[in-house]
């Protein structure tokens, strides 16, 4: 149980970066961008390929981020300059990236042009590099002692991954929060909110959409690069349904934590990504469910996150209405009795 939850927190934090990217396109820009399924794999493919070629994992991850940015920009170009419908631009980019990703990973293979997966079993990754620095600190022991005192039996081999990922995610959250409050960020938000208005305030909405989608997919690819290093492999199929996972995180987070301010919403998205992973892990522990049912479970989670809040809101409103109704009729009765006594008194006075 504990190890399942621990694993999902680790993965959830990595996917949270992707979810922040989805939040930028879906919510901020109001652009349903399906590029994500492709750009996530691009990030993984670029990072894995470069690591295999011997580059430092940090450089490989940074290049993956740039490639994601470019992919997003192309989707933006298709939509703004090519006047292609947003959904279709994303889908076109997604399938185009499938082939591109095969080619990228194919660079590591001598006898074929494309390659569907790259294992990173013995390669240095960001996580293994960090582990070398983290292990001697003795934090693992301290944490594990604490948890074994609580009676947890299966202890994780290291807390390093959670540590470094938490730092990275928080850093990215602050960057996103800051960016959305800059002059450019305000204009990007307005582009998703009211295009006509921001155009009348001299903003080039085309450029803003392109930059926004670039930024969004940069985060997605970055997340993909980290996930490949975490899972120690990049695979052509790892991006399937990624957009739904991102969307699920956004929706769950927003439903639980609300969207009052940007700072709160980005936090909600991150928390949503982690909660989604935990719910999924718990659901998979049910006897009759199998790993193959994951996508079905995802669909059910998203559907409930969309429907349940409506149901609760309706119930709350009904309760509120009933209470107000009672209060009003109580007031009315009270004023009636008062009138009555006044009348009786008036008569007896006579």
């Amino acid at each position, binding site marked *: 149980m504990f190890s399942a939850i621990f694993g999902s927190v680790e993965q959830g934090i990595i996917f949270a970066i992707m979810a922040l990217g989805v939040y930028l396109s879906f919510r901020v820009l109001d652009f349903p961008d399906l590029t994500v399924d492709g750009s996530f794999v691009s990030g993984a493919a670029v990072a894995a390929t470069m690591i295999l070629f011997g580059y430092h994992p940090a450089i490989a991850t940074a290049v993956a981020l740039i490639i994601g940015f470019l992919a997003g920009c192309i989707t933006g170009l298709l939509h703004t300059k090519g006047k292609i419908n947003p959904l279709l631009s994303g889908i076109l980019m997604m399938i185009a990236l499938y082939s591109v990703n095969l080619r990228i990973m194919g660079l590591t293979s001598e006898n074929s042009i494309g390659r569907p997966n790259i294992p990173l079993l013995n390669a240095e990754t960001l996580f293994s590099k960090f582990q070398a620095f983290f292990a001697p600190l003795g934090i693992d022991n301290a944490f594990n002692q604490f948890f074994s005192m609580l009676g947890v039996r299966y202890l994780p081999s290291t807390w390093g991954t959670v540590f470094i990922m938490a730092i990275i995610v928080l850093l990215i959250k602050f960057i996103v929060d800051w960016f959305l409050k800059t002059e450019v960020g305000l204009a990007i938000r*307005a582009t998703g909110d009211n295009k006509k208005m921001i155009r009348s305030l001299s903003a080039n909405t085309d450029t803003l959409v392109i930059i926004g989608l670039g930024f969004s997919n940069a985060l997605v690819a970055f997340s993909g690069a980290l996930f490949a290093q975490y899972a120690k492999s990049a695979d052509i199929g790892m991006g399937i349904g990624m957009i739904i996972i991102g969307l699920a995180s956004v929706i769950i987070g927003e439903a639980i934590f609300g969207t009052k301010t940007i700072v709160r919403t980005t936090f909600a998205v991150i928390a949503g990504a982690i909660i989604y992973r935990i719910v999924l892990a718990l659901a998979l522990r049910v006897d009759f469910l199998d790993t193959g049912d994951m996508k079905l479970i995802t669909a059910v989670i998203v559907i409930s996150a969309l429907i349940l809040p409506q149901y609760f809101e309706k119930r709350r409103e009904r309760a509120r209405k009933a209470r107000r109704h009672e209060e009003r009729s109580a007031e009315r009765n009270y004023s009636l009795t008062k009138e009555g006594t006044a009348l009786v008194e008036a008569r007896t006075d006579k």
Partner: protein
Amino acid sequence: MLKLEQINKVFNEATPDEKIALDEINLELTSGDFVTVIGSNGAGKSTMLNMISGALTPDFGKIELAGKDVTKLPEYVRSRMIGRVFQDPMAGTAPSMTIEENLAMAYSRDKKRLLRRGVDKKRRELFRSSLETLHLNLENRLNAKVGMLSGGERQALSLLMATFTQPSILLLDEHTAALDPSRAELITNLTKELVEKDQLTTLMITHNMQQALDLGNRLIMMDKGQIILEVGAEEKKGLTIDKLMSEFQRIRGEKLTSDKALLVV
């Protein structure tokens, strides 16, 4: 300040729905002019405004703004010099963003947008003091989302945003038409105040004849894509609604009052 030369625009050309929206429009505004535009539905008033703002491009003709030929400039470049308020109170503001964020976007209209904070301390003070001039208590709700404001409040905010950076020309497209009479009066007075304060060159479309007579120093009447009547500063002072209507009748030979949709008296 603004010069329209022989502007032509045809919609749905070579189809049964073909409509000549603007027919050889010539108009010149000198700096500080406040021109009110009246005319029936489909007269081409909004089309003309959209030409000036760059939302539409003319088929033929030339538009000059502040001495520059802007005919081919895209909307977002032109709008550095143009302030606009739309008829729909929802159109001029971003509902999910706060009052101060909306003002910050208006503030950077004539500047390059950079990666620096949209709202800092200094700007917040500036926004607060500008909002005070509206007398709507918005200065104490800087962090309220604009979607929570009433139509009148949003339109007042739009007006402030449009005039914030002293544009070369202010375009008002029936900006009081969607409001109830008392709110409309408030916005009308506010328009007068803001325009007079900065001596803004203004072009205002209205369906309300009284408003067209009360505001501005010049008046034009449009019909079927043409400017059929121009009233200068001197003439306008003695103008009444009755005179305007008989003038229309004389020019077009049609009775104006019979058309309910035409004008609100």
